């Protein structure tokens, strides 16, 4: 019997490891399955991260960076702007090949792609392109974009992110609905295979215009359980993985041999939004009391100093237009209690919050809950399932809303979506203004079309000060993007940041021995 068992196990072992030849990069991602893989519709972190390795834009942010200051040519070699900043002419490379058997990419493709991105029927990001008046091919490899009014960053809309990903016209028309399952781009890696709930395989694009990639394929594995992903990395079944976002993970993963850790920008900013239309939060003193009761330093300790950046302004540090020069509220339980008493609540208040059960986010609010409790503020968390959470906070049902989001790193995006009155939830134009904040409307609107960068910076700073003055929200911290990989992998660039939230795997990436 024993012998038989040994034989049986031996047989199992002899089958060897699965599909591991040296030049496959296996990546562990934290979702259960792929969503929509059309870059103009993909909104989940997982899908965007994958598409990042398959598409180009007219311009790009240098691999490994997430700051628009690093914008450099991609499909476009150079560009000119008219004096009023409204007419932009881009000259394109003529050696960009669409994946597979699709043809060379020319100006018509680029025009098609950008128009597609601006059309609400074919894109989830059409709203971003509303300022574009026309997009024309003015030569075989020349595109002219005409704006109706000045916007903070046209180039920011043309990087390979959301609608800026350039798709190939023939492929889109040819594949129809199937394009969303087998996207065709021009980037270093191309779509090869999908197995539900398991992986997507990308193959190297031998015709990539910057040169063929040095690794043969990427196996993008869906591993939703944090523990399982970590164990698979530990056992060597995956080469690279996304982190679970807190200090304990960083410490444990760093402790494994041959492991390279990356802490990348942009972070997802954790912000407490205070609904000014709901008593007792309509009283600014109660909102100030909350701001005083929250101990940001302790929260940073809690989540981990290596993975967070404390935030004092409603615009994340690192975004174009951010300022730290805003009114702040030092941690003081006494001051919080005083303010509550002044506001007529000497015995404390009860505040309700609808929140997702998504564990990473919930832990932050639980920590905040304990801090508020010391100041006599009873935060009642109504923990609901994630989809319900989104619907209910958008219906303006929550007094206090804790939200976690990463956005394109220009101040206008955060300010508009979260603090402009047009974005107030439960209105036709509503997005994610949960606080009903409207004090900074003028500054935000003016900054948006201001052509003088210095003046624009001032307006953005004013907006941030006004928002903090009014205590529309209490920013907590940014949680950086955490990844780790086996150090036999050389990305070819330093991974300081990534707009699409996945590490820069490019034609330069290779395994070293």
């Amino acid at each position, binding site marked *: 019997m024993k012998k038989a068992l040994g034989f049986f196990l031996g047989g199992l072992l002899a089958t060897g490891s699965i599909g591991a030849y040296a030049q496959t990069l296996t990546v562990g991602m934290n979702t259960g399955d792929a969503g929509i893989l059309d870059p103009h519709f993909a*909104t989940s972190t997982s899908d965007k991260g994958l598409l990042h390795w398959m598409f180009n834009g007219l311009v790009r942010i240098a691999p490994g960076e997430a700051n628009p200051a690093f914008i450099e040519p991609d499909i476009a070699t150079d560009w000119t702007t008219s004096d009023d900043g409204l007419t932009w002419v881009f000259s394109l490379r003529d050696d960009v090949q669409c994946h597979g058997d699709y043809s060379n990419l020319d100006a018509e493709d680029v025009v098609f792609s950008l128009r597609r991105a601006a059309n609400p029927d074919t894109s989830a990001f059409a709203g971003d392109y509303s300022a574009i008046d026309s997009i024309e091919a003015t030569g075989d490899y020349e595109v002219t974009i005409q704006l109706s009014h000045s916007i903070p960053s046209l180039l920011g809309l043309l990087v390979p992110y959301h609608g800026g990903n350039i798709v190939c016209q023939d492929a889109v028309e040819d594949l129809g609905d199937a394009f969303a*399952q087998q996207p065709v781009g021009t980037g270093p890696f191309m779509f090869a295979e999908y197995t539900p709930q398991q992986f997507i395989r990308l193959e190297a694009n031998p015709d990539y215009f910057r040169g063929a990639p040095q690794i043969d394929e990427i196996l993008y594995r869906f591993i939703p359980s944090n523990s399982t992903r970590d164990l698979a990395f530990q056992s060597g079944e995956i080469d690279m993985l996304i982190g679970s976002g807190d200090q304990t993970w960083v410490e444990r993963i760093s402790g494994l041999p041959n492991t390279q850790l990356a802490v990348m920008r942009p972070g997802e900013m954790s912000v407490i939004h205070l609904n000014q239309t709901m008593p007792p939060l309509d009283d600014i003193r109660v909102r100030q009391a909350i701001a005083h009761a929250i101990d940001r330093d302790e929260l940073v300790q809690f989540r981990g100093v290596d993975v967070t950046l404390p935030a004092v302004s409603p615009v994340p540090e690192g975004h174009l237009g951010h300022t730290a020069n805003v009114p702040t509220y030092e941690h003081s339980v006494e001051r919080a209690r005083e303010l509550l008493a002044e506001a007529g609540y000497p015995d404390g208040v009860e505040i309700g919050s609808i929140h997702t059960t998504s564990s990473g986010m919930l832990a932050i609010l639980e920590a905040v809950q304990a801090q508020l409790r010391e100041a006599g503020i009873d935060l009642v968390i109504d923990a609901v399932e994630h*989809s*319900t959470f989104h619907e209910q906070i958008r219906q303006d049902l929550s007094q206090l809303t804790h939200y976690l989001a990463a956005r394109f790193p220009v101040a206008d995006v955060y300010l508009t979506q979260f603090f402009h009155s047009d974005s107030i939830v439960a209105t*036709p134009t509503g997005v994610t203004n949960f606080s009903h904040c409207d004090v900074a409307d003028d500054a935000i609107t003016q900054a948006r079309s201001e052509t003088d960068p210095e003046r624009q910076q001032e307006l953005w700073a004013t907006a941030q000060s006004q928002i903090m003055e009014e205590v529309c929200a209490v920013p907590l911290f940014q949680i950086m993007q955490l990844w780790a990989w086996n150090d036999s992998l050389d990305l070819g660039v330093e991974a300081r940041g990534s707009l699409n939230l996945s590490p820069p795997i490019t034609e330069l990436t290779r395994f070293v021995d």
Partner: protein
Amino acid sequence: MTAFLLKRLGFAFITFLAVLTIVFFIIRILPGDPAYAILGDQANEQALQALRARLGLDQPLFVQYLEFLRGVAVGDWGVSLVSGRPVLQDILEVMPATLELTFVSLFLGAVIGIPVGVWSAVRRNKLTDYIARSASLLGLSLPAFVTAVLLLLVFSIQLRWFPVISSGQGATFGERLRDLALPAINLGLIMAAYITRVSRSAMLEVLNQDYVRTAKAKGLSFAIIIRRHCLRNTMIPVVTVVGLYLGILIGNSVLTEIVFNRPGLGKLIIGSLYQRDYPMLQGMMVIYTMIVVLVNLITDLTYGFIDPRIKYS
């Protein structure tokens, strides 16, 4: 027999329709909506509204219901709202993995559970009985996701016998078995715990029956009594309960699938529930109901197989 089958099938069909109807309306009155999952959280209300209209989600519920029934009838199960892939294709692709896991762990559970249960009943209130009972309690009280991680830590990290990721689609039999081993053990042990309990009490009951006493009085050897008279009669409650617990098994398989990262129906349904992917959810429910109705039917037929005295009428 044929009349019985037809009658059972008729009732099965009614059950099936009733479940579909209930499920359809329950799913639709759940708070949350797929538009957020599709457009993401930067879209404004107008864009979300336009998308709902395009997906037909602004139609009256009853119209959507009829459309759904028509779809089920003609085999058009629609496409996933989230991925755009055909619902049926996605379900069929992961179904073999789920069936494989369910049946292997059920088999494992029976192979371990029935002998241990019977033995423990025969040795009632002896040491072996207590050991068997305590072991089954362990299986009953540890949540499946905790035992799953323990198995991974021991067999995949320490001993390195099995992979952490159970892909559920190895090309060779050996690879498939290797992938299946840990998840099947995890679920099989839980199943074994249940089956041990049921077999033990069923066996105890049989041991007290008059005919067993008669057999003993006749001086037949104990082993023969057990084999000839008791096992068969023990099986009926065991089969009933196994059918009964299949729901629990499938529920637990969700957790097992997540931790061992196996593809499967459980993961699919939870994912689509979270994203309010209505067509996918409905398709899953159709499949689940079909499976359960079928299992009930098979359970009934199994009685006749075990005990020919049971007549179908």
